[in-house]
């Protein structure tokens, strides 16, 4: 079983306490793994650093959304009140950035929120209703009070027996091979 088996998704083990999984994450990181994850019922403070994850680049999509929203707001108000059907109301200019500012402001926020919300789904590759992890009986407890480390078979240094032994050395319980 030392060969990489394509039908295996990975190996998992569980921990009962956040401090244990935190230490385990640091060791997996230091062993140079790249395709792995820690599944937790709540976001553990500092686990990103323990896993060596970079800061999420989601803010770029938020900025992109916000800028898009502002431009859409400008185009919308300019086209409707100045270009397609110019109206004189209250002696105000046909278009300026001042009078429709509340509209531009709201459009900016709306599209920035769209960028953030949909960006979160794109970055997290969701929705995905089928995943090999969902077949594990102990995975159901991860949303409750269990912490799970998963080493994926896609990782270049994945060898099934070594991975199992490694998780054992970290003190993980319920070491399980996940079928794809």
């Amino acid at each position, binding site marked *: 079983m030392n060969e990489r088996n394509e039908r295996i998704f990975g190996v998992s083990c569980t921990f009962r*306490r*956040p*401090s244990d*999984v*935190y230490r385990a*994450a640091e060791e997996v990181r230091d062993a140079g793994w790249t395709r792995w*994850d820690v*599944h*937790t*019922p*709540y*976001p*553990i403070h*500092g*686990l*990103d650093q*323990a*896993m060596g*994850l970079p*800061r*999420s680049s*989601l*803010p770029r999509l*938020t900025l992109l959304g916000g800028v898009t929203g502002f431009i859409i707001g400008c185009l*919308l*108000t300019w086209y*409707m*009140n100045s270009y397609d*059907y110019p109206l004189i*109301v*209250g002696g*105000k200019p046909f278009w300026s950035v001042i*009078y*429709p500012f*509340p*509209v531009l*402001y*709201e*459009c900016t*926020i*709306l599209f*920035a*929120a*769209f960028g*953030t*919300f949909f*960006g*979160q789904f794109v970055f*997290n590759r*969701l*929705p*995905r*209703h*089928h995943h090999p992890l969902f077949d594990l009986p102990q*995975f*159901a407890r*991860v*949303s*409750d*009070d269990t912490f799970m480390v998963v080493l994926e078979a896609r990782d270049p240094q994945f060898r099934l027996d070594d991975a199992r032994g490694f998780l054992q050395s970290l003190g993980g319980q319920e070491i399980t091979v996940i079928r794809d």
Partner: protein
Amino acid sequence: MAHDHDSSSARPAVLDRVRPAELPRPSLVLNDRGFHWITDKVCGIVEEPTPRWWKVTFLVALFVASFTGVGLAYLVSTGTGTWGLRAPVGWGWAIVNFVFWIGIGHAGTLISAILCLLRQKWRTSINRAAEAMTIFAVMCAGIFPLFHVGRVWFAWWLFPLPNQNAIWPQFRSPLEWDVFAVSTYFTVSALFWYMGMIPDLGAIRDRARTWWRKAFYSLLAMGWRGGNRQWSNFEMAYLLLAGLSTPLVLSVHTIVSFDFAVSNVPGWHTTIFPPYFVAGAIFSGFAMVLTLMLPLRAVYRLHDVISQYHVDNMCKIILATGTMVGYAYATEFFIAAYSGNPYEKFAFINRAFGQYAWAYWIMVSCNVITPQLFWFRKVRENHSLVWIICLFVNVGMWFERFVITITSLANDYLPSSWGYYSPTIVDIFTFFGTFGFFSVLFLLFVRFLPLLPMAEVKMVTPQANPHAH
């Protein structure tokens, strides 16, 4: 849920010499409850057989909601003349109710966004229900301007959509700004609410026994797996949405107040309106949060997660914002006196001593005097009393909008065009029914969605800290 990045590493040297006393922080989850207890408690609400109180309350709520249905059906089939609107008061209960419900919603966003940015961890256990309240309150609010347009089948003209007359919305109007503000507010609040719920929906999915429950919650949970790579993006999205909702919520009631302040009616044309409206909105919203959460806490025995500390904090916010509102009332009088404008002066004397003085003094006693009782701990610990005071606050805040809207319109410039406005039975039915509509939605939320954000509550327990052991 935002990270606060490790602050313990940069420890100033002086701390070793002076050895400051550790001030105990109030624990947010009492009785040392574990993760499993929290999951069981919150999922249990959804999983238990429908309790009898829920069925009875739901039927009552449906019955009350039908009043709105009847009121609106009569209005649409007959015309807006069935409301009490006539010259000089062209804005009656509809705008009062609209501002009232929008204001209620603001506390939800304050709790979910502003308190998140301020790292007020106590917000976690009331966050979800308060956000739900926001969304349902905005839905109730939306009914009024929608039907106030008269021919409701043309209400889509409010939006910048091409229509057969080839005309567009007029963006110099505060009413059009309102359309954008309220629809953005509703959309962003709903996205924020739903996104925060995804991990908890995953938790309900993982415990589901029946196939329909599994299918329903799987669909809603979007395949959430709780991997830290997902949490990392999720937390960032949460923080960003909190950061976006904060200027949004402040802008919404600001723009709502522009509906009044941009006009030149005496008593409306004041620059104090935006901050005064926002403070009032938070004031009434927190009162509504307590009105809803205190019974729920008792019914579901949530005393360990919604403790006296939470109630205290909310009471203190009501006290603070209530005092701000009282200060704003006083400022309005001062500015009116100082303005040298006889119409402005008259508008305020007329509010306090004119034909609507009864409404003014209901407003002052409910909004300024009642919340002052929250200075006393004995009052804050007596939850029946807290609940009653919150009802008073809500009544008072409804009257605030009534006073602002009606008194200024009924007696503006020329005494020959003054009038006295009273609502009709159709107005009363429509407004009364919105409480039922709101309750129907809120009861459905309580029954089918996670009432407390489990992941966030787990995060604030002492055992959640990986460095504690």
